[in-house]
């Protein structure tokens, strides 16, 4: 699955296993509580692309209700560290994902505030930070560019 930021032509490639994982959330959506986690992957500047290789799924310390998902550091940081070490220090934090009870998901005010905050962080390895919302029918991806929220377009495989 490939997505493109039409302004900067940055390409986000999503590994099949991650894609499958996302679709299990789409298919098994039970409306009871929200889910979420972090996006993990590698940087590929030679092709102006970023590859999403892994995600984390909810850990016990995350706060999950019907309308919100508050991700804690617990579990996610550890998982991130393991991915980083096992990948010979190539995998990095790439952003956040969460589910939303909407057919075609739209970010809430809280989401937007949160995304802007995360994108501003100085210790991000990737110039690009992505935000994925899994709706009940569709998966949508955004990134932040110059403090603006930009939705990525899906592009066909080559």
């Amino acid at each position: 699955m490939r997505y493109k930021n039409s302004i900067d032509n940055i390409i986000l490639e999503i590994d099949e296993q991650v894609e499958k994982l996302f679709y299990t959330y789409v298919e098994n959506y039970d409306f009871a509580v929200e889910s979420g986690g972090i996006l993990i992957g590698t940087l590929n500047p030679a092709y102006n692309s970023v590859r999403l290789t892994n995600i984390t799924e909810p850990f016990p310390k995350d706060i999950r209700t019907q309308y919100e998902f508050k991700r804690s550091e617990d579990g996610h940081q550890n998982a991130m560290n393991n991915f980083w070490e096992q990948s010979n220090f190539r995998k990095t934090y790439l952003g956040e994902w969460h589910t939303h009870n909407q057919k075609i998901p739209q970010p809430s005010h809280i989401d937007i505030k949160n995304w802007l905050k995360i994108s501003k962080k100085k210790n991000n390895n990737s110039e690009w930070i992505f935000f994925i919302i899994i709706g009940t029918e569709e998966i949508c991806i955004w990134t932040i560019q110059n403090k603006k929220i930009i939705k990525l377009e899906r592009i066909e495989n080559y």
Partner: protein
Amino acid sequence: MIDLQKEFIEFHDNIKLDDENQKLRDKREILLKKLKNNISDEAASYTTFNQGSYAMGTGIYPEDEDYDIDVGLKFDINKDDYDDAVEPKKWVRDALDGHTKHVDIKRSCVTVTYQENGKSAYHVDFAVYANDNSDGKMYIAKGKEFSDKEYRYWEESDPQGLIKLIKNKYSGDDAAQFRRTIRYIKKWKTHNFSSVGDSAPTGIALTILAYDSCFSVNKTTDWATKKSVYDDFSALHTCIKNIKSRFSYSWSELAQQMCYKISANLPVAPYSNLFSKMTDKQMDELYSRITNMLSKLDEVKGKTKRSEACTILVELFGEEFPVTVDKSIVGTSESA
């Protein structure tokens, strides 16, 4: 400056191509066998040796997958008995001709080109030498089949002496850093110049620049472990800085402008200038690209983020340079 030695070593592992490479060995052996079986009875006896960058330990994977294998054929002949230097080349051409490959007599060698899926997959250059001369020296056969007579001649050559010089310049781990640095520069060249035409410097020209005092070993002895710690980035940086300062700025008659020019002579016969085939303008262009590389390397020096430093190096060297990142701090996140 962050420690990029691991990345450089990995990069080197990704690009290095040496004589140990089975694929190259196999291809060479097949052709040598064919040559042995098919060469005409009229031909003189010969021995073979490996030459070129693989033999020197400075070979890299080609970006266009067109592997370049260099083989030397030393014929037991006296050059004075062969007025036409192309004649021994024809023995080789004829022995290898008539197969699916394309065989061609070029100025300095006989080239066999293999194609895969309509693309040149690799080629083997056979250089033909006369090795039984009255002066004890070795001569290479120059000229194409239908060149004028003045372009068909014997030229003194010492490819094995050259290999020895490069190999013996340094020893042990120092030699390894020397070879790695040459490979980095050669990889930069193939990544930044198109492979066709003479606009790019040859690999051997860059090798000789490094050999001829541009390169110096960069290592520090760790007082704690008493071991040498190599710093390839700094070695490369210094080498490029020195290459840059080898250029001289002067008027070019041909280009009718001031140009940066460079020269480097082969340290063995025929002691020719290895940049002689580049025009003044091409050398000037090389200078600006070297300058650009240096400023990129300076930029790397100033980076504190691993991913940013690696991104610049990918730009310089291509995707073979690994992109590592610092530990991620995931923090917390809130969504609704």
